């Protein structure tokens, strides 16, 4: 029995070999072609142009879905939505980028816009229409009226219905369902046709695109770690060569990463791009322009921001040392260029951070340093308070505005809910990451301007360019309760009503709430 069996298997093995080789060829052939294509294309800085076509196609599908949903909605609720019901179809989805700042954004109806603006301004007591509540006619000045509470009550109720802050830390609301199951719109059954589209989309996203994207991302990580190790092994005295090679490696690696999330990034206004100079041993500039890298500041939505910016330009980064997947990338990057990674305990030491930052900025041979001064991820509907730290250092500030199109997949990273890998998984199973990047003209601090004022000036420019709401609120409110100074400010404002009767009671020194910068002023999440 045994010999026969033995002979049988050996024969089989013999047969298998030829078959195996064929399989091996069939499998490795396309894979290696794929791998080589990825590396060659990224090296050439070319892409096949699929992504833009794909995004265009998605827009048409969404538009179709929107019309279907609205029709279904009208059938369900009928047209009896009388009281201040606006025509649903007034919310227009713009197809393709428009020429102005808010390129690919769903439009608010004018009514909503007005309401939003009003709510935003109602925070400040001194604003025009609210003033009527407080500015009491002269004859009854310093008199309390029972109706004085109306102003506060109205503001309070408005905040309960919709507030400016907490909505920034959850996924931005979409106007229409984008056929993903995990948006705030969830899965909706509207019609069989739409459900079929959703199903096909689901299949494509999870079973076709996800494997490709994971592979590409993996190739990117492999490339980055190996290439940075190589560049890192070049002695420091060949600074120019090192720097040039690093630039190539960095651009190429981030390009590959951007493919793994199907990023369609449109950069605007290249003339304002931050750039450091490459200086040779004798100190003369080989490439780039004088003035050193300076600091590039941008609004922060997710770690993807780094990819979005680094596919187009090279930066050094500053931030907290991470473990896990981000940690691998951080260590790889740090091998070849002068990124500044801090331990969590060191981040608390603001002076040390500021010193390192200053040294880096003053060294003209170094790359511009990328900072997200909000210090936390915001859902890309607003820009929140900028920590003043990066604006105290001096040097040139290069503001950058980033606006994502949330319809293709919401890029906001809610780090309290999802780990980095979970987040990446969601990004890789979304439709795409579509965004616009605007380089704004470089800015410097005016003489006599405080770091806080400068930070606010930069922030409002970024907000305007990106079509984002400009907020004074601190992004740290995501984790910490509101400071009581803000309440005291409102109380002080109201007490001014009684100022004529007894000026000595008014405490003048309520701290300016916007300058309570006791939190880390540098972004801990890069």
């Amino acid at each position, binding site marked *: 029995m045994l010999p026969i069996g033995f002979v049988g298997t050996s024969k089989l093995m013999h047969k298998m070999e030829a078959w195996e080789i064929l399989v091996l060829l069939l499998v490795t052939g396309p894979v290696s072609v794929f791998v080589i294509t990825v590396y060659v294309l990224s090296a050439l800085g070319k892409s096949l142009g699929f992504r833009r076509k794909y995004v265009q196609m998605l827009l048409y599908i969404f538009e179709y879905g929107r019309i279907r949903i609205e029709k279904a909605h009208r059938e369900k609720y009928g047209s009896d*939505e*009388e*009281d*201040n*019901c*606006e025509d649903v179809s007034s919310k227009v989805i713009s197809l393709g980028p428009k020429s102005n700042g808010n390129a690919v954004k769903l439009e608010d109806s004018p009514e909503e816009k007005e*309401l939003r603006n009003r709510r935003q301004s109602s*925070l400040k007591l001194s604003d025009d229409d609210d003033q009527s*509540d407080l500015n009491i006619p002269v004859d009854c000045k310093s*008199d*309390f009226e*029972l*109706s*004085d*509470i*109306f*102003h*506060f*009550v*109205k*503001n*309070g*109720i*408005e*905040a*309960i*219905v*919709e*507030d*400016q*802050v*907490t*909505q920034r830390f*959850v*996924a931005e609301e979409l106007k229409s369902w984008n056929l993903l199951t*995990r*948006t*705030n*719109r*969830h899965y909706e059954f509207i019609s069989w046709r739409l459900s079929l589209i959703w199903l096909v989309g689901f299949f494509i996203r999870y079973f076709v695109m996800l494997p490709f994207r994971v592979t590409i991302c993996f190739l990117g990580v492999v490339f980055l770690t190996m290439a940075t190790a190589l560049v890192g092994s070049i002695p420091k005295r060949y600074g120019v060569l090192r720097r040039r090679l690093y630039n190539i490696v960095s651009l190429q690696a981030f390009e590959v990463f951007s493919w793994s999330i199907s990023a369609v990034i449109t950069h605007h206004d290249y003339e304002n791009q931050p750039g450091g100079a490459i200086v040779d041993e004798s100190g003369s500039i080989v490439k780039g322009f004088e003035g050193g890298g300076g600091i590039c500041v941008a609004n922060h939505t997710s770690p993807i921001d780094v990819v979005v910016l680094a596919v187009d330009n090279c930066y050094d980064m500053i931030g907290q040392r991470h473990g896990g997947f981000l940690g691998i990338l951080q260590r790889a990057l740090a091998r070849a260029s002068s990124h500044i990674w801090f331990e969590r305990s060191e981040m608390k030491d603001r002076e040390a951070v500021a010193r390192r930052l200053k040294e880096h900025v003053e060294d003209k041979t170094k790359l511009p340093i990328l900072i997200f001064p909000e210090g936390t991820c915001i859902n890309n509907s607003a820009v929140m308070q900028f920590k003043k730290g990066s604006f105290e250092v001096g040097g040139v500030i290069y503001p950058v505005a980033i606006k994502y199109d949330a319809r293709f997949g*919401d890029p*906001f990273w*809610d780090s309290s*809910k999802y780990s980095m890998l979970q987040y990446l998984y*969601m990004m890789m199973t979304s439709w795409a990451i579509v965004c616009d990047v605007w380089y704004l003209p470089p800015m410097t601090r005016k003489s006599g301007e405080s770091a806080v004022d400068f930070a606010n000036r930069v922030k409002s420019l970024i907000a305007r360019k990106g079509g984002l709401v400009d907020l004074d*609120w601190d992004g740290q*409110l995501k984790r910490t*309760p*509101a400071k009581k100074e*803000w*309440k005291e400010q*409102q*109380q002080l404002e*109201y*007490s001014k009503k*009684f100022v004529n009767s*007894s000026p000595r*009671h*008014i*405490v003048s020194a309520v701290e300016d709430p916007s300058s309570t910068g006791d939190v880390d002023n540098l972004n801990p999440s890069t």
Partner: protein
Amino acid sequence: MGSRPSLLLRDEELAEIQKETGFSANQIERLYSRFTALDKTGSGALSREDFLRIPELAINPLGERIVMAFFRHSEEDRVNFRQFVRVLAHFRPVKKNKDNKLNSREGKLKFAFKLYDLDDDDRITKEELLAVLQMMVGENISEDQLMSIAERTILESDMDGDGMIGFEEFCKALERSEVEQKMSIRFLN
């Protein structure tokens, strides 16, 4: 990006709320989604902390009083969606020929009155008035001065001479105030 349901209300419940509050179905859906967003623990009801997590409310001098208004009619220390919408309904703009007792001028005044009337005995005493004043001015004005303001206010409005302000006296005192406008907000559809 959470798995927040867009609307989990049953149709009949929706119809009841619509009838009671005068909100449209769309407005109720919006408010429901807001309600679930505020409900961080996912328990289906809001606690005081859930409300005060809204920074703009937390810094409102009367924030705590406003939150208390939501809990007035609830036995427990949590507010469910029905109660939540009912309170908000007071702030619907007044519309002609569409009467709803919550958002009428009287409904709005009642709401304001109850903010002062802490012990719910339908009268505003000097102490209750003083407490509200203190919340609004904080440390900026001396207690003596506030006391005299409170006394004067009661004197001006008190008609039956009991040293307190009843609801009718309250309405009379606010006769010329534009309550309909000042106590209304717009609800998006």
